[in-house]
């Protein structure tokens, strides 16, 4: 008999899981709270490590979603209950009984206004990495609130990550490489601009990332090892920033036209309800906890509940796709057993 799998979240993780689990011969239902699939990736313009169009990735996945797969859009999963070996998933417009669950509900963006000293939402030329992606989608280059083209731009790494003050001690993993990617794109769209990246460490861990860093250096982007202490607004709504060049032990101040805050990946609050319904504890950073750091990266501690992608912690698209495929195989083995 065909078994039913419910996938919570229709980002790239959920989409890939739906494709794979359907191919393995099970009935699949995807619940997505937005009106469309794609999750956060649908908001990005070009993606690292190769500056490919994000749209291409979403389109390729969409093409593979066969008609057999049941997609429930605008369908926010509010509650999950467990009855013996099966689960009842209640969304605002649906109810479904399933034999297994893949939690693919992703992350939330760190709210930049929590770091008040950086002036997001107060000074008009303080934007986030996500605002910058939107500018690239809309106009192909960044702009100041008054419409002018910025000539000096500073990227601020680790906003809402590695920071005890906002209770986020972990590294968000994708923001260093995103900052390098965006700095390159700024330079490509405004060649005469001066671009600065203020970092604590540059974490270029993935294939092709170090190459992008070298490319950024070659384009004349200035990397300054130091963390922003405060930003203030000066004439013409420009931003005065202060940091230390920790390599020469000298405080630095500079005025720029635009600062871009590299906001971190935070656990999603909506997830907490689902985790508590399933009697799962979040890990110490607030994400869904995997059963074994090395050997069961997509198992939760509850039988029949699998977890993948950014709901388990910061990850790249490649990580998310890998986790998704791994979860799909685990789901298949599990369903063949029960």
């Amino acid at each position: 008999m065909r078994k039913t799998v419910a996938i919570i979240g229709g980002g790239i993780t959920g989409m890939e899981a739906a494709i794979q689990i359907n191919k393995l011969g099970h009935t699949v239902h995807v619940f997505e709270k937005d009106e469309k699939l794609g999750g956060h990736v649908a908001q990005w313009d070009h993606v690292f490590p190769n500056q490919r169009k994000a749209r291409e990735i979403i389109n390729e996945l969409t093409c593979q979603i066969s008609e057999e797969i049941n997609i429930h859009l605008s369908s926010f999963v509010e509650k999950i209950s467990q009855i013996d070996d099966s689960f009842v998933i209640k969304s605002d417009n649906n109810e479904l009984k399933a034999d297994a669950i893949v939690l693919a509900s992703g992350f939330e963006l760190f709210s930049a206004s929590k770091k008040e000293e950086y002036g997001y939402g107060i000074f008009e030329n303080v934007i986030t990495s996500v605002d910058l992606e939107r500018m690239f989608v809309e106009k192909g280059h960044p702009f100041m609130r008054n419409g002018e083209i910025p000539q000096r731009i500073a990227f601020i790494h680790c906003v809402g990550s590695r920071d005890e003050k906002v209770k986020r001690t972990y590294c968000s993993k994708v923001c260093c490489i995103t900052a390098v990617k965006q700095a390159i794109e700024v330079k490509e769209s405004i060649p005469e601009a001066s671009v600065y990246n203020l970092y604590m460490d540059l974490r270029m861990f993935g294939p092709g990332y170090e190459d992008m860093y070298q490319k950024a250096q070659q384009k004349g982007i200035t990397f300054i090892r130091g963390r922003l202490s405060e930003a203030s607004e000066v004439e013409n709504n420009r931003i005065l920033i202060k940091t230390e060049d920790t390599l020469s032990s000298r405080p630095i101040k500079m005025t720029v036209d635009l600062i871009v805050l590299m906001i971190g990946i935070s656990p999603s609050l909506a997830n907490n309800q689902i985790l508590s319904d399933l009697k799962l504890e979040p890990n110490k950073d607030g994400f869904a906890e995997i059963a074994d750091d090395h050997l069961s990266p997509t198992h939760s501690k509850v039988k029949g509940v699998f977890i993948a992608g950014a709901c388990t912690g910061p990850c790249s698209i490649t990580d998310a796709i890998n986790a998704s495929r791994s979860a799909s195989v685990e789901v298949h083995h599990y369903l063949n057993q029960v």
Partner: protein
Amino acid sequence: MKDFGFSPMKNKVLNFDELNHDFHQWIAIQDSSFNLCIACGTCASTCSAGSYTHFSFRELCKDIRWGNAEKAMKESEKCMLCGKCSIACPRNINTRNIIKMVRKAAKTSPL
């Protein structure tokens, strides 16, 4: 009067709004490997001159970058052009050539 107590302190703050980038840009044009430095310090730790004097190629890069042309020119005199740093640099930076360019600039004032 005897020099007593207070003197105006030199401001330590590096003001990027007043920084002169001309020398850095000139060096980066002479040798395009200049911008690739990651400040790892391998060059300084292997440096023959650095064992006996306060000389570091890493610091020289910083001086060039932060518009401190005069200091860079003066410091460059300490190098013995032995080339050990070029062999060690993980970013393949043409360190000796950069030092030669700094010395050339000191002689010819190209800016």
